[in-house]
């Protein structure tokens, strides 16, 4: 049972990380109109960042670490996604060369 709960908490961490990362993109996405959009951008970061903190506190040590692992694993996964795409392009280029 504990294992299943840990897994659910881990997945919850990943899902929250998705929203947190998206909100962290805000300053860049809205850079062209940041003068009017900055309150919304900051609010979004605070909401998702705050939610992560708020959720992490009530978990006990065991589940807190699962939750934080969820956040961290997703962050790494996300950061690797872009170089992986670049690699896919290079691989496709090599496949073309071989044809």
């Amino acid at each position: 049972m504990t294992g299943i709960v840990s897994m659910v908490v881990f997945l919850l961490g990943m899902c929250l990380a998705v929203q947190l990362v998206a909100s962290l993109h805000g300053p860049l996405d809205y850079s062209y109109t940041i003068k009017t959009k900055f309150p919304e951008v900051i609010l979004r970061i605070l909401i998702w960042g705050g939610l992560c903190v708020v959720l992490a506190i009530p978990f006990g040590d065991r589940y807190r670490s699962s939750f934080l692992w969820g956040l961290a694993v997703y962050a790494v996964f996300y950061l690797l996604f872009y170089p992986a795409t670049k690699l896919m392009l290079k691989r496709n280029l090599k496949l073309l060369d071989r044809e």
Partner: protein
Amino acid sequence: MGTEILGLEDVRRGDIAIAGGKGANLGELIAKGFPVPPGFVVPAKACEEFFQHIALGREIESIKDFSPDEYGQCCSSIREIIEKADLPSGLAESIMAAHEELVNRRGAEIVCAVRSSGTAEDLGEASFAGQHETYYYVKADRLLQMIKHCWASLWSPEAVSYRTTQGIDHSTVFMAVVVQEMIQSTISGVTFTANPVTGNRDEIVTESSWGMGAAIVDGRVTPDHYVVERESLKIREKRIAEKKFMVPARLEEGGSRLLEVPHDMRRKETLSPDMIRTVSQWAIKAEEHFGSAQDIEWAIADGQFYMLQSRPITVMGHEDVTKGVEGKYVIFKPLIENFTDPLTPLTGDLMSLLFSPPVMQLIRGWAYLSLKHVKAILPFKASDEAFASLIYGWDAHPPEMKISPLKLPFTLIGLFLGYLMFGVLFARTRRIPSDFMDRFRDLAGRVDKDPAYGPFETLERLASWSRLLDPVGNQVLLVNFTAARYILGLGVLQKLVRRWAHDLREDAEALLCSGTEGVLSAEMGRGIWALAKEAKKTLAVREALEKTKPEKVLAKLQSEPEASEFLKKLDQFLAQNGHRALKELELQSARWEENPSPVLGMIRNYLLVESDPSQHERKIDQTRQDLEEEIKQKLEKYPFERLFRPRWRLIQYVASRTKFFAKMRENSRFYHIMAFYMVRKKILRVEEEFISQGKLRCKGDIFFLRWPELVKMQAGDLEWLGVEDRIRDRRMEHIRLSKMVPPKTIGVKLLERDEMEKEIKAVGDVLTGQSASPGDYEGVAHVILDPSIDIELKPGEILVAPYTDPAWTPLFLTAGAAVVEVGSYLSHAGTVAREFGMPCVVDVPDCTARIHSGVRLIVDGDRGFVRILKGEGGESE
């Protein structure tokens, strides 16, 4: 017969071992009295002796020590030896003497075609075709060198690789060469004694154009097209093309191989009825002589008919298209309207970089989904046929399937992984402002000006998603991807509306989602309408647009002082929309900025029909408001609805989100096309460079190179001689494939649709397709193949088209209904037809061939059928 040079008239059909397939064939034609231009054959024995003379045996022997990957290296050294060595003096003298005889016979200087004539080629399945070279416009001073080039083509990596695979001993392969006078033709063409597309043996198909035949054979012009009835030699079908280019009889040193055809000749018929009879009669004679359907190349010079070649016909059926393709595939319908013509090799290569094979693959230039991989993702238990039908027609007639409990967990894991990959983007684009993507234009401009960006780098920067911290360049593609959420929205809306409000019109959901502001392609349509309004203000401009052909009208307007305001507005329109084109995913397609004729044609169409799109929009708005009232009334019977309207609010919310995502998808496509235009510009710059260096000879040829070949040419590892034949072969294949409707599936069949379809099919002239916009309509058909040329659609006529894209939108304003050869519910034709509230049936194979302009049709947009009523004459044009 040994190494002596043979006149073509001395060779017969059985002399393939001496004169090769082409030589023997031409000799046979001369012997039977066909008017073949004079020429001679350098026999295969001469090639054998030359190889012995230069002691090529050791190099040939060493080939077996190389792996196929290394053939390029060893072949290059063999070819170099052949090309640098001198021919034995006796042989060279005999060749030049035979050439001199040709000159004397003509009584003037001549240019020759020098053709490889393989002793194993043209037998059976012509397996060597395309591996051996042919050279045109060869003058006496280059004759010996070109003959050596032909022999050297035996040692291309492709030819060596093919022989190795077939177990053919390289040391036994030699080649004859045919040297033939090039007739300075005024008209030339190709005739098939059976329809090469349909296989119909009662039809003789001729394609002809001005000048030398190379323009047609190489696929560089769209020729006039004649279909003649075999028995009576009456013309069944005639399409006069706009022949913009011709290949001149003489090629100036360093000059272009293509010359512009004078304007007054472009739309002029190349063949008189008498000429068509003559050509058809010779073609039938050739077929009778050889005993099988023939494909003949011919030319007319000084009124005299010449037969240049006759060979067994290649009928391209779907089996030929799918030959050699392993696996099971289903065509990807949402993209098919952009792929009605197969992509050119270069476009295909660059596009395939963006795909993630093996789920989606380009097969012969068309996009297909791999059944095996899609099947692995979907959690259903069903036969391959059912899966293929689900993928093919998922948006209209999904076959019933059971969920597989074994596959379900894997699907859920797949969905979760998908969420991890794209979840951030889903969240980021949930509420992006409408102007989010506007910055893409600036970025595209910067990339265009930066010489550090080549075609590949431009594609990577603007059309892929390889940068983490780039909100503009990379995200357009992803926005398009995530905006597919509108399909989900449409599904939810349908469930809600049909659950709570019964007996609504068929297109209720589509109507609720119509009328979105800020859709760039709709703005484009309004822009063209605004230009038409501007044109109406000045009589001179209106007259110029109405009375001058679109391709000439710009020059006329530029010489007209009163047209300055119109031209200024046209420039503004092109600055905004100039990256768009017909068949815009194809990089070869000229953009409106480069050639605004299609835009001028559309303006002319608006002027001719005198319709007002804003009236139409108002009508749609009114219909939508009526529908909303009707739904509200129907909801009133539910609890709390009169008081708080919870159901209506939910429907409104889902409709607004669906509209938002649909707008995002459409607008992101607008910017994709801009990205492809930037790639096209980069490619055109490379092409310009290649032409100035002599690496390419004709504009447009670059699109028939493969990407690795382009890279090699840039590096100086590949020259014109190495790609000339490949380009020609690919152009021909592209033309053949373009005339076909792509097979819906490869390696798997679709399920029969249903009993209703069978029943209707049995009634007679009924074409089946897929409903894309509901409603019934009866009217006269108008087949339009190219909206830039044929633009006059009378109000109420039924538009019958091979495909549609935004350039076709103005025609929808005047059409009563639309029937389209390809597409799906989500395709452009369906979207626009629903927006305009007219019936539309898509995915009707061969409808442009089977329906003739002028016949009456009933379009059943509810069930996806088209019934052909009694004809009123007229031909498809």
